[in-house]
Structure formats: C-alpha cells, structure tokens
C-alpha cells in the first residue's frame, strides 16, 4: 500500500497528461479522418481547386499536432523537456540518415523517392517515440 502510494503520479503529472490528450486527440482523429477520406476516394488534385484543398487537408491536423507538441514541451518540467528534446534529436538524426540513404539509393535508381519519403517520415516518428520511451523508462 505504502509502495503504491509512493509510486502514484503527482497531480501535476495527471494535469499535464490530460492537457496533452486534450490538445492532441482532436488532431489525431482529424488526421485519421482526412487520411481515410483520401485513401477511400483518391481525389485527383490537379482536377479542381476543391480536390487540391482536399488532398492537402491532412496538413491541417499535422500542423495542429506540431502546435500541440509545442504546448506539451512548454508545459513539461525541466527533466521532461530535456528528455523530449533528446528524443527529438534522435528522431531528427534518424530522418537525416534516412534522407541521405534515400538520396544515394535514388541516385543509383534503387529507390522510389515518394515511398522513401514516407519511409523517412515513419522512421523519424518511430525513432523519436522509441527514444522517448527508452529515455523516460530509464528515469523512472
């Protein structure tokens, strides 16, 4: 019981976590909806202005997520901010490495740039989130 009490999260942890969910969840839902609509209907972006705007619609939740991440960073305490920045640096390194690899493979006609860009984005996010998980687990 005493151990459970010592282990419980602080009220500021809970408040920060709730605020992060409040900031990010609508953007995640919107991102899923816009992506799903693009996959389902595959609009031709060059056919009309409306289709172009529709094709670009995932940018809105993506920018929203960037803004939410900034707010999470501002609310974080000093150790959490350091951990977040370390994880972002690792994610950035992964993106740079994948971009260089992609450009070399593309020069050798071994990679499709579009697929490689998607792989680079996913690789960066995975490296960022994975690093954050490892870094925060070590501090627990």
């Amino acid at each position, binding site marked *: 019981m005493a151990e459970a*009490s*010592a*282990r*419980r*999260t*602080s*009220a*500021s*942890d809970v408040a*920060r976590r709730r605020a992060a969910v409040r900031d990010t969840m609508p953007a995640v839902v919107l991102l899923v909806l816009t992506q799903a609509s693009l996959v389902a209907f595959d609009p031709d972006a060059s056919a009309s202005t409306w289709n172009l705007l529709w094709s670009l619609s995932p940018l809105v939740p993506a920018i929203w997520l960037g803004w939410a991440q900034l707010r999470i960073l501002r609310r974080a*305490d*000093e*150790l*959490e901010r350091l951990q977040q920045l370390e994880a972002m640096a690792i994610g950035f390194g992964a993106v740079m490495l994948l971009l260089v690899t992609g450009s070399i493979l593309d020069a050798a006609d071994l990679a499709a740039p579009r697929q490689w860009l998607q792989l680079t984005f996913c690789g960066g996010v995975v490296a960022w989130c994975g690093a954050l998980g490892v870094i*925060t687990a070590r*501090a*627990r």
Partner: protein
Amino acid sequence: MNNRLRELRAERRWSQAELADRLDVSRQTVNAIETGRYDPSLPLAFRLATVFDAAIESLFFPEV
C-alpha cells in the same frame, strides 16, 4: 552531485508525488533528483530549498 532530499522527504513523511506536487514537477523528476541521475536547475534547487525551508548548500553537496 549528492543530495539529502530523500532523507528530508522521509522526515516529513511525504511521498515523491506529494513533493512533486509542492514543486510543480513530475514524480519522475523528483525520483531522478533523489537518485542523483539528474541535477536540478538553479530555480528548481531554490524551490526545493524553500519547500524544505533549508539553504541550498545544505541540500546539495559535491560527490567526494
């Protein structure tokens, strides 16, 4: 850097979470400071000194 946070917290019968609430930081941060894995910034060190009503130099001391 070593510190006496765990000892002072135990004297007051506070959990890490209670101390974290008083400092407005995460429990993880309190744990990392107590175990010497993280040295707090000067503003946080001053907040710790205020919470424990002690001088900073009585809370933190260099490793010998």
